[in-house]
């Protein structure tokens, strides 16, 4: 074999090895990004489970409050309507978050209304309901925190080099973390209501 042919074979081999290594690294990065994207979707499903539990509590809340506070019909009708909208399967994620915030506000209004009805506030069924609501709020908060951690890791992963090249090919874009709305911060402080 001539020297020229030897050099040619060596260069081709090196190129082949480099391409092979790049392909392996590419597959590794792609798999890692897919895992992170799936984790974000999983964690969002966790939030949805808790939101569903919260929606399931609404009919109970309405029926308990209705018994004692018949004059608060408009507030109860509003929350029932919002619940029906939230349970619609065709609703997209952005509208879901928006509706969730509206439901939080409406539930806050119901709980504030209860303040005017001491007999209702002291009733066993309402106390049990508040307890369940508190529990769901704590679990919802944990789910949102996990979602935010997963989203932060995913966003970091798709923005750092060389992952960003693969992320572009896969059309992966940054996702928003869950921010607690001001209305939610103000209105769903059940613990405060309980202690008042």
């Amino acid at each position, binding site marked *: 074999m001539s020297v020229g042919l030897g050099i040619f074979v060596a260069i081709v081999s090196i190129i082949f090895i480099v391409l092979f290594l790049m392909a392996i690294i590419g597959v590794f990065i792609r798999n890692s990004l897919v895992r992170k994207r799936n984790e974000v979707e999983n964690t969002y499903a966790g939030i949805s489970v808790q939101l569903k539990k919260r929606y399931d509590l609404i009919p109970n809340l309405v029926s308990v409050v209705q018994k004692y506070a018949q004059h608060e019909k408009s507030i109860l009708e509003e929350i029932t309507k919002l619940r029906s909208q939230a349970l619609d399967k065709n609703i997209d994620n952005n509208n879901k978050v928006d509706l969730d915030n509206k439901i939080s506000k409406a539930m806050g209004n119901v709980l504030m209304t209860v303040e005017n009805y001491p007999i209702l506030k002291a009733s066993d069924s309402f106390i049990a309901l508040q*307890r369940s609501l*508190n*529990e769901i709020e704590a*679990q919802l908060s*944990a*789910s949102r*925190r*996990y979602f935010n951690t997963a989203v932060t890791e995913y966003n970091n992963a798709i923005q750092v080099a060389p992952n960003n090249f693969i992320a572009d090919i896969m059309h992966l874009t940054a996702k928003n973390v869950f921010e607690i709305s001001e209305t939610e911060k103000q209105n769903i402080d059940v*613990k405060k209501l309980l202690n008042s």
Partner: protein
Amino acid sequence: MNFDDFYNEFIENKHDELEKIRFDANRKYKANMLAFKYSTISVIALSVLTLIYSDFTAVLFLVVMPFYFIGTAIGVVSRLKKHIKFRYKKEIILPMLNYLYEDVKYKSYQKISVNLIRKSLLLKKYVHTHKGDDYIKCRIGNAIIQFSEIEACGTRSDIGFFNGVFIAASFNKYFKSKTIVYDKRDYTNFKKSLLNLSGDTNEAEIIKLEDSVFNKKFKVIGENQIESRYILSTSFMQRLLDYNNKMKKNVSFSFVDNKFFIVMPNAKNMLEPTILKSIYDKEYIELYYNYLLSITDLVHNLDLNTRIWTKE
């Protein structure tokens, strides 16, 4: 709750037989220690002289003397401790426990169950056997607490690898998975794999929490990312940090089977009488009072009493 109030009410006027026994024993102990000191000096002096004159008979006889005196001194302390230990715990420690806690069950010769220690997953090695005493079970508000001093031993049962206090408390939330909060100084990267391999945990992962100060101090391992965050709410993480800073020790926590476990290293054997000071020495009793008060602080600081959640 105030130590001075407790002392004035339960201890101050007690100047009885117990202190007299300790005082006599202390006198004997001091006399023997003094004799040990002088006989040791004498033996050394005589040894030098006999080396010069090459006659060892006197030294062979005298060399026994220091051992006799030190043996007697140790014997005095041990007899005294045996004699007054039970009464000390009954007359000093038990009133203190009743003053600080409710529904107290105190077994001075017993220790917390080894099964609870194993279940907690807090100690770095498998606890084969354990030694310990001063088992206390009590109620502080709504929280049921049990704790004791322990010396955990590995497979070579005579060698203790951990000395300290082990606390088990009822927790105010229900949970199904296991979460362990290790002090970072006690954590090794191998620990998580070991827990999964041994079957103590089921696919446990590292839980990355949002609080950077908490992450600097602790390493959290859990079976369920959401449930671990449900237990370690942002306010609870802050309270764990505050408690840890207050104790100034490598405290680790775990949450298993709806129970909350805490281990705190402590080399000193607590709640024991001393021969060197008065039985009713205020400073000495205050040391034990503060130790027991730290358990009350644990319940209050970590808000274990609050039952606004699922648990009644």
